[in-house]
């Protein structure tokens, strides 16, 4: 191995720490995004105009302004109204709220994609609207939006690199620091790219396995082509599970 690569690999512990922080921020931000998305989707389908308007405003404002600016707002502007967050928390909040707006639209589409007859069948059987949503609509909606939701998880992961702008020591930020120190652009960024690839593939692989456990009958059997891993990353499929 050449001298340059050896030098970069001496920084591997720093890279791995940064990778850990990236993953940690991703998981927290995604959890927040799921909550924001679900609440906003329910609010947008609400009977009350006020809820619909609020959720609509949230989605439109977030989706029509740059993420980087939203990160700056949370980190630099919120303290002036008394909300002081450290850089990592600010990053989690900004990215979670941002992706939540996209997930809201995904969830809304998922809910309306469930055939109307499903709700009618449940209604005649005597299920209350709440029971119908919980036992009939939501499980099917979840299954319909699962691949798109996994895409948003990856979007969160990649979005965390923007937090370098508020000096969060995540993967991209640490890479730029090591790059400045060593000036080994090619080696530093090649390694960083590789680490992102490992992270994103590991996440979608885990999501794919989770999907296999959660959804019966298996997604690919019920609806050909909807299996998230198979469609986007054919080689990542584990062994075929027979039903």
């Amino acid at each position, binding site marked *: 191995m050449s001298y340059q690569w050896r030098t970069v690999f001496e920084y591997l512990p720093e890279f791995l720490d940064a990778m850990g922080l990236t993953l940690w921020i991703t998981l927290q931000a995604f959890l927040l995004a799921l909550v924001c998305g679900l609440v906003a989707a329910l609010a947008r389908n609400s009977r009350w105009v006020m809820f619909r308007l609020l959720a609509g405003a949230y989605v439109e404002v977030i989706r029509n302004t740059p993420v980087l600016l939203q990160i700056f707002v949370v980190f630099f502007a919120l303290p002036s109204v008394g909300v002081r967050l450290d850089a990592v928390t600010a990053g989690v909040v900004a990215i979670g709220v941002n992706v939540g707006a996209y997930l809201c639209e995904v969830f809304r589409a998922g809910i309306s994609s469930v*055939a109307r007859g499903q709700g009618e069948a449940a209604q005649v059987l*005597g299920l209350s609207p709440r029971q119908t949503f919980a036992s009939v609509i939501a499980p099917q909606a979840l299954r319909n939006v699962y691949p798109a939701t996994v895409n948003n998880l990856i979007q969160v992961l990649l979005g965390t690199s923007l937090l370098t702008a508020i000096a969060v020591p995540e993967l991209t930020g640490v890479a730029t620091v090591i790059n400045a120190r060593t000036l080994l652009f090619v080696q530093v960024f090649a390694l960083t790219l590789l680490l992102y690839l490992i992270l994103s593939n590991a996440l979608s692989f885990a999501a794919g396995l989770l999907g296999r456990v959660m959804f019966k009958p298996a997604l690919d059997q019920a609806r050909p082509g909807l299996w998230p891993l198979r469609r986007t990353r054919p080689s990542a499929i584990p062994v075929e599970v027979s039903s």
Partner: protein
Amino acid sequence: MTATANGATIGSNVQLRAVTKAFGAVEVLKNIDLEVEDGEVVVLIGASGSGKSTLLRIMSGLETADSGQVFVGGIPMHEPKRAPEIRGHVGMVFQQFNLFPHLNAMGNVTLALRKVLKMSTNEAEAVALKALTRVGMQDRCENYPSQLSGGQQQRVAIARALAVNPRIMFFDEATSALDPELVGEVTSVMRSLATEGMTMVVVTHEMGFAQRTADRVVFMDDGVIAEQGTPEQVLQNPQHPRTQQFLARVFEA
């Protein structure tokens, strides 16, 4: 008779008086009067758009009439506050089956038993197995809808409706989405239900079923009941020109 939450009892008869329904400017039902007695099998026939499905949906509580009176099992469905009382006491079988795709056959049948009738899982499965046996699907409990043929799915849908012990069964073109060779397995289940005394209102294009099973055939045309009577009267010896025309076209096909 089964008791509802507020102590009222639900019968097995239907009374419609001067029922009208419009979707926008289109009058789908014009002043419909219809009685279905306890244990009677009434078959609704007529061209597409004649209002038969809408009538069935009003009886099952999926639509509300614009005016007129609708009593189903004694419940005044035209009173918005009381209409929900019918839920869980009538069964509805849909053209598109509407089975829950994320649940297997057993799960489909037990859902309402567990959630609405608050049975334990064991209790619910015992009741569901009886219902599935009644439609000959006891060996397919573990299968998901996507793993069943159309006819099998519709039989599971019938079992799901039967399991809650409905007072009346409504069939909305239950065989129209099936391959011709699968129609028989569903109509034979429907016929056995009729033999067992179930009150049934059936919208169908299967004239053979109407002929053999109906106590009364009702011909609807353009939102009105044009003619009704025994299968022999309506199907063999129709009086109304529209009935004659309709039947001529059906038997031609």
